[in-house]
């Protein structure tokens, strides 16, 4: 497969004895957006910096569009990066910031500024060229950073937590903008975030990392519906992880014994035997205690507007449950039956 925009082959990056990135391999197809997702310290940012050339790998091989760039410095890789802090040069105005890469690349100032002005227009920033970065709002600064990266027509565009400095309302719009832009221009993008919702919303491919290794990679739906282990299940949205015994599982339905109760639920095929089972909070329905299901008692209940959240004590352990606000409400202390509608068997 030579048409991968980025190819990591068993790449390792060690700082002293610490392996920040440990034996990581993945391919990013042309024009796709891959998200590196994981908690802080998982190696996702180091992986991005390896792509950028800001770190050089200790072992392994990195290709960009079929060319081995493993030993190439950042300046020679023809990538562009949008930094978490945006890294706009405070002593240059917006236009100079955007034209910077063209100017240091040897373009004539007039041509560079014409290109930069056009790019500012594309991103809806016309008229702001003479401002200093400090005079812009957070969202505008973010778009300047994107314009500065795009104006170089990079082979690959890298985003390091681009939304983390924006307020919650803006985040959603900006992430949609980024996704639109990526699709419209057919860019190959690597995107780092620790926010699973953000990852689900924008990605073609998600790589979940833990302790420098890849925990699981796949499409957003694969990762959400079929997480490989408890870590991924919990990280891709919340999950109740229970111990249970699979009695039978075939044709999309299974029979499982949990907390002394036998339950029937949607489930992918799995050999019989004890297993760790994940249940998403929204896949649990609360019913009157006389109905079939895992018996329990509501310990805490909270109303959140669109949803209600419950903590229910059962014989299998505490369950976190999210129900639509339109569903029946339960008071704290009420006895209920928990109906598990979908169960995800996990790798041991």
């Amino acid at each position, binding site marked *: 497969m030579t048409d991968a925009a980025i190819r990591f082959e068993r790449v390792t990056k060690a700082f002293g004895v610490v392996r920040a990135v440990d034996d990581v391999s993945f391919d990013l197809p042309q024009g796709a957006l891959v998200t590196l997702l994981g908690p802080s310290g998982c190696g996702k940012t180091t992986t991005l910096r390896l792509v*950028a*050339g*800001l770190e050089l790998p200790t072992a392994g091989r990195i290709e960009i569009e079929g060319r081995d760039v493993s*030993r190439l*410095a*950042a*300046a*020679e*890789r*023809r*990538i*562009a*990066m949008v*930094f*978490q*802090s945006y*890294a706009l*040069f*405070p*002593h240059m105005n917006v236009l100079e910031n955007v034209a*910077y*890469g063209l100017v*240091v*690349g040897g373009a004539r100032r007039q041509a560079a500024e014409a290109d930069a002005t056009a790019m500012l227009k594309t991103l809806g920033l016309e008229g702001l060229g003479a401002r200093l970065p400090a005079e812009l709002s957070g969202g505008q600064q973010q778009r300047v950073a994107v314009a*500065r*990266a795009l104006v*170089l027509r990079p082979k690959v565009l*890298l985003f390091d937590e681009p939304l983390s400095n924006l307020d919650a309302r803006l985040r959603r719009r900006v992430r949609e903008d980024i996704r639109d832009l990526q699709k419209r221009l057919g860019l190959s993008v690597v995107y780092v975030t620790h926010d699973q919702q953000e990852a689900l919303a924008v990605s073609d491919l998600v790589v979940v990392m833990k302790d420098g290794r890849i925990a699981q990679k796949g499409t957003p739906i694969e990762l959400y519906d079929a997480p490989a282990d408890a870590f991924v299940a919990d990280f891709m949205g919340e999950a109740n992880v229970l111990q249970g015994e699979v009695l039978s599982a075939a044709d999309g339905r299974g029979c499982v014994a949990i907390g002394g109760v036998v339950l029937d639920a949607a489930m992918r095929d799995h050999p019989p035997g004890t297993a760790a089972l994940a249940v998403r909070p929204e896949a649990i329905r609360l019913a009157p205690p006389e109905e079939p299901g895992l018996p329990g008692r509501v310990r805490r209940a909270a109303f959140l507007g669109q949803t209600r959240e419950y903590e229910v004590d059962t014989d299998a352990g505490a369950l976190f449950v999210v129900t639509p606000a339109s569903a029946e409400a339960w008071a704290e202390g009420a006895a209920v039956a928990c109906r598990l509608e979908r169960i995800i068997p996990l790798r041991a």
Partner: protein
Amino acid sequence: MGALALGRLALAAGLIGLLLAPWHGVEGGVDALSAWPGGDAAPLLALLLDGSRWWLWPVVGLLGFAAIPLLPGRASGGLLAAVGFALLAFVLLQGHAIGLRGLRWGWLAPLLGAPPAQQALGWGGALVLAAAIGLIAAGLAQRGRFGGDAFIAFLVVGSGALLLLFVFVPLLVILSAAAVEDGHLAPSALAARLAAPEAWSLACVTSHQGCGVVWNTLLLAILAAVSSTLIGLAFALLSARGGVRAQPAFRAMTMLPLITPPFVVSLALIVLFGRTGLVTTALWEWFDIPRSRWIYGLPGVLLAQVLSQAPIAFVLLEGAVRAIGPSLEEAALTMGARRFTVFRTVTWPLLRPAVAACLLLGFVESLADFGNPLVLGGDFDVLSTRIFFAIAGARHEPGRAAALAILLLALTFGAFALQSLWLGRRRYTTVTGKGDAGVPAPLPRGLRLACGSVAWPWMAFTAAVYGIILIGGFVHDIGRGDMEFTWRHILTGFAVEWQDGMAFRGSAWDSLFTTVEVAAISAPITAGLGILLAWLLARQSFPGRGTLEFLTMLSFAIPGTVVGVSYIMAFNEPPIELTGTALILVLCFVFRNLPVGVRGGIAALAQIDKSLDEASATMGAGALQTLRRVVLPLLRPAIVAALAYSFVHAMTAVSAVIFLVSARHNLATVYIVGRVEAGEMALAIAYSTVLIVVMLAVVLGIERLVGRAQIGRRAAPAGNLVA
């Protein structure tokens, strides 16, 4: 910059050094150059062709060896580096082997026969050495060291070589000189010198004889440190917490010592308290208190040192007091503590690290001070003056001077080691990122009175001292109370006549011109090199970074007197002979003031997010472009501070350069010290006033040109330098 480009540049420098520039040092300036390409100014090629330097043919061979693969662009890194190393080693070693009296290394006689004498290396030699450095850097970069960036490689290798040559080698020379007796290595002489009674005698405890010079130095340093810290603390508490409306006076008091040559205060003290001084005379005439020479000795030197050190203590401690988050004290108040209890249990413990730092700084500055003990010391000798007289006194005893220098160095390093031990263990951060809306607690009443009773008289005293300096140059004879206005002293020093154009008749013009010239040349070099080194140390990772940082900071800890002695010992004979030139003054200033530029730069870089550098790199800019377009513009305040600092220090320094000046290149401070020794007090004061005015003008000019920045003294914390 690519490695090949650097290699070719180095080659070009080497060729200029070979074909054009005079190979040996040229004495007699421009006149000798007229003999080019023969005589003293002959380039190496001419010397090779006439056969007088036949052993230098390998230089041509090595350059050619590098050129053949380099020009078509096929040079391997290993080859370039090896050629560079060989060239460097060869040129330096042959310079040591064959000196002013012909062959010096006898064991080379079978190979070299009896070569003619050769002088020190000149610009040609320097260019070839620079070419060697360039080739080494290009070779290392080609092999992928320093991230493959030839520019960084050249900076690291070049600055490393310079620091080795001008900081480390002189130190080694002085250390070894202490162990040499009559030209032979004699460890017993070293031991005897280090343990000499002149250093360690305790005679003053039991008899009227003086004590050892080490005890004198220690006593003075401890007294100076404690007094200046206490006075500084009183001012700091008053200024930050006393509710005093005298900020301009406080500011002026902190500014003045920075732009005053260190010994000028001594002159004022003599004028006030000398045998015929103003105060002395008044006391004699009004109260019949007999005239005495008490000012010459420990009391006078101590007063002078405290006068210049207390303001620095004030600046440091005021910063520390203001940095204490008021909410900490408010918290204590809400828990029911009374104001004085709060001060004793909260404020004071938080101040202790700053006070300790201040004490150590005062201690080290006193150890290094040379001007005041020289002018006011009388029979009270300290290490720095004793070192000077061992070199410049009646008997020239370099071995003894070196041993005393080692003792002084040991005291200084001891103090720094103590400081880092202490600071390593405790560091309080009271300024957090969170806003602190509290109001600083006012001082307890008793404490406020105590501070005031120290600060206000001291303020009056300082004003008197600087008042003397201000008017001393413009009255007939301030030393004898003759206060009639006159231009006489200014004219003696700075008369200008019109006689077929301008003629600078005054006796001080020569030294003033040299001083300004040397300061103006060394300041940009210091600032530039300092900022570059700061950038290397803070932003690049490369093998040997720690060593480079150590070498940079080393010169900070070496007292000026030691530097001066080590420079005349290290650079007095071929192959590197610099004594008597203006170049050695420039080099001395550059490497003595470098650490402050580096510290200021590192502190400023810490404020600039590294992602800016990285963003520039991802957009295709190399290290040189990133430095030029992003880092340097953002570092402007630090550059201004470094410029102003190094300029002022080049104009006010005495201790190191008093060993290095010559009849042709005299400096203002040394000239003034000479006037004082000749008893021409008024001329000395007049000259000092002119110096202060020049420095003020330059500092304000630099600030206007490149924006405001504070100047700090030697060890003011970096934060102040970039504020």
